[in-house]
């Protein structure tokens, strides 16, 4: 569904043009091009990609804050943001975004999609403007499975490009804060929402969609930022007769509601012109007998041709998934031992490396302490040992798998995963990959679905979880040369924010409020600050006026406090909030 641009946005555009005439070609020097995005790492003090570079490394080469100086890291300034108001089934919004910084100007979003431009020069933070997209909170919030979330902005030309939970792509003038244009990309009437930041590739904004718990048919879509029109939309569930459609069997026409959401921002490999993007769980989540077959391309990593969105290759992690083990996580593109790899930390508890030129399996290793759904991943095939290609419905370790014959099942990792959306980071010198881990198990009650269960804007999950087991967390480092775990720093609570790597440090936050720095090799904790709020966002770093800063959004975001809190009762004490913290030496 594509709505015509509203009169409101045309008026805004006119106002923008008028301002531009009055002010001259402001901002042209800061225009973000594909060339700058390709060379983002050369802009050492900036952070102009959601994941820092196209390869998704979240690695900064800045070294003023290092393992010797980090003990002197202190709060430089804070800024209160908004967006905590309720909507739909949610009692509050929160913060999950990664700040973008270009030449001292920071762009952040709150959970309802408001975009803030903050001038960070002069050792303080000054709000320049705020763009409120007026998200339809009830329309979107009633079909957002997992919180009032928005993970940030992207830059292109003189525009800041963002999404809204109610499915829009919004282009905002960087100088004025006026909406230049907007386009409806996803449809909440179908249970579709958008929470990820756009990925900008070759003058296109790439959008992913959420809603695999609501019977959507997932997709990845590209919008031409010049014409404001859709260039391509690739469905993650094949249509009738397309390759992969044979993996959807049975009488339910299950592919039409097959899930396969794409709600985490992907990466881009310019050498092979390939967008690498993760695909979420099949629907219904826990009744895999409803959808016999492997259910491509759910729980898969996709390699897409950038210009057309054509699927070049795929690798599936959990065929006919009965656990809700999304593979939406970001794929980091790393070159190791002469191989071009895409590495992904899957909800199913295993970190995977595949050859990003063809999708062939290279290695998999468990990054969680406890896995009970499978004995392991077959090193020859990349599939779970129990996977039987001759069976239409997989049971893996049947005693731990929800099904009509096993109505209540406990499995590890739990359905929230060994790792959820919070991004990993990669140190290319040490060749260590840092995963924010949820050390979890939970319990799922199976509910048999029929085609009559499928209704627009209604959960279509085939059961539901409870959380009778305590859940903790860790930072787990994997040596990408060997594919083995190189270290684990355990934490009292699951890690729900994400990672930042620098040459000798890694940073992360905890849902109990701590922001911490660990030694990049030993994972020993070298510094910690208690923010007093829930940390559900990744840290980033930048320079302004020649000085390095560390920034992180703090504000109880996501779904943990609504769906999973019984596994971490102490976190009931964390209150909603919305604050940007910025640290400096």
């Amino acid at each position, binding site marked *: 569904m594509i709505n015509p641009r509203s009169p409101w946005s045309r008026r805004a555009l006119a106002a923008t043009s008028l301002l531009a005439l009055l002010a001259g070609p402001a901002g042209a020097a800061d225009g973000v091009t594909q060339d700058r995005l390709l060379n983002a790492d050369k802009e050492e003090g900036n952070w102009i990609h959601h994941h820092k570079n196209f390869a998704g490394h979240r690695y900064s080469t800045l070294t003023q804050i290092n393992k010797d100086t980090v003990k002197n890291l202190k709060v430089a300034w804070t800024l209160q943001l908004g967006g905590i108001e309720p909507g739909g089934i949610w009692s509050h919004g929160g913060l999950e975004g990664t700040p973008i910084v270009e030449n001292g100007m920071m762009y952040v979003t709150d959970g309802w999609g408001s975009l803030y431009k903050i001038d960070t020069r002069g050792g303080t933070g000054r709000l320049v403007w705020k763009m409120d997209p007026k998200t339809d909170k009830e*329309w979107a919030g009633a079909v957002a499975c*997992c919180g009032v979330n928005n993970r940030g902005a992207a830059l292109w030309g003189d525009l800041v490009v963002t999404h809204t939970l109610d499915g829009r792509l919004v282009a905002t003038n960087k100088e004025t804060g006026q909406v230049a244009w907007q386009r409806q990309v996803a449809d909440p009437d179908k249970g579709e929402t958008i929470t990820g930041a756009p990925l900008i590739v070759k003058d296109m904004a790439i959008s992913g969609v959420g809603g695999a718990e609501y019977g959507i048919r997932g997709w990845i879509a590209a919008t031409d930022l010049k014409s404001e029109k859709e260039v391509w939309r690739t469905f993650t569930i094949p249509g009738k007769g397309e390759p992969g459609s044979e993996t959807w069997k049975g009488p339910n026409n299950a592919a039409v509601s097959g899930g396969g959401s794409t709600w985490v921002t992907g990466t881009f490999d310019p050498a092979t012109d390939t967008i690498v993007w993760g695909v979420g769980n099949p629907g219904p*989540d826990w009744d895999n007998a409803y959808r016999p077959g492997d259910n491509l391309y759910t729980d898969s990593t996709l390699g897409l041709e950038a210009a057309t969105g054509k699927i070049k290759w795929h690798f599936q992690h959990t065929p006919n998934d009965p656990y809700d083990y999304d593979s939406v996580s970001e794929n980091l593109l790393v070159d190791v031992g002469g191989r071009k790899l895409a590495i992904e930390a899957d909800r199913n508890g295993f970190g995977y490396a595949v050859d990003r030129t063809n999708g062939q399996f290279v290695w998999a290793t468990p990054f969680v302490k406890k896995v009970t759904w499978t004995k392991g991943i077959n090193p020859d095939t990349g599939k779970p040992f129990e996977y039987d290609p001759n069976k239409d419905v997989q049971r893996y370790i049947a005693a731990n798998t929800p099904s009509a014959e096993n109505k209540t099942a406990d499995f590890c990792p739990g359905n929230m995963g060994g790792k959820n959306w919070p991004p990993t980071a990669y140190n290319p010198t040490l060749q260590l990959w840092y995963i924010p881990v949820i050390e979890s198990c939970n319990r799922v*009650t199976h509910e048999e679905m029929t085609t009559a269960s499928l209704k627009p804007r209604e959960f279509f999950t085939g059961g539901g979880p409870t959380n009778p087991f305590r859940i903790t967390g860790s930072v787990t480092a994997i040596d990408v040369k060997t594919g083995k775990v190189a270290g684990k720093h355990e934490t009292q609570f699951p890690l729900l924010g994400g990672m930042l790597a620098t040459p000798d440090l890694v940073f992360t936050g905890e849902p109990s409020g701590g922001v911490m720095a660990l030694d990049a090799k030993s994972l020993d904790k070298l510094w910690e600050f208690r923010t007093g709020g829930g940390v559900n966002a990744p840290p980033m770093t930048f320079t302004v006026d020649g000085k390095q800063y560390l920034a992180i959004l703090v504000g109880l975001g996501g779904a943990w406090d609504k769906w999973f809190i019984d596994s971490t009762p102490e976190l009931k004490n964390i209150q909603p909030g919305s604050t940007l913290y910025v640290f400096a030496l």
Partner: protein
Amino acid sequence: MLKLLVTALAAGLALAPAPGRAQAARGDDGLPVFKKACAGCHKWHGDGGGGYGGDALSLRKTALAKEQIVEVVNCGRPGTGMPLHERGAYDAVKCYESLRAEMGASMPPEAAAFLRPAEVQAVAAYVVDRLKGKGEPNVEECTAFFGGTSRACDIYRKKEGGHAGQTATQ
């Protein structure tokens, strides 16, 4: 005894009403409480079903009387994800004639926020007046829940052949 009571509760049989609660709450007063405390798992229309909040029971199909609903809201449902909402339940106040020590693994979880007795009465009245025994959700119910300025109920307007024209996104 506990098991017997829980079974009886699940079957919707009459139990003694909890004593000393406020009376005469109306369904209207219960909507904000229902939104805050119940809709996440039981859904806005109360029909329950699977979801990230667990596999919640249907309140549209419930056989429970108002006082039984009050008791379940206060005490939760042992052995399930339905949380208790009364401060002191199983400690200062017995639930299903039991205290915490007797509950073991079937102790229900505690809700994120307790409800006041008047709120519990109001939400139980809401369930009985507005949900219990109702058929498929319709546009009036949806609009009563989400309000008239959102597109949240457009799918019901379309289904019922009405005008789907709300464009509240701009």
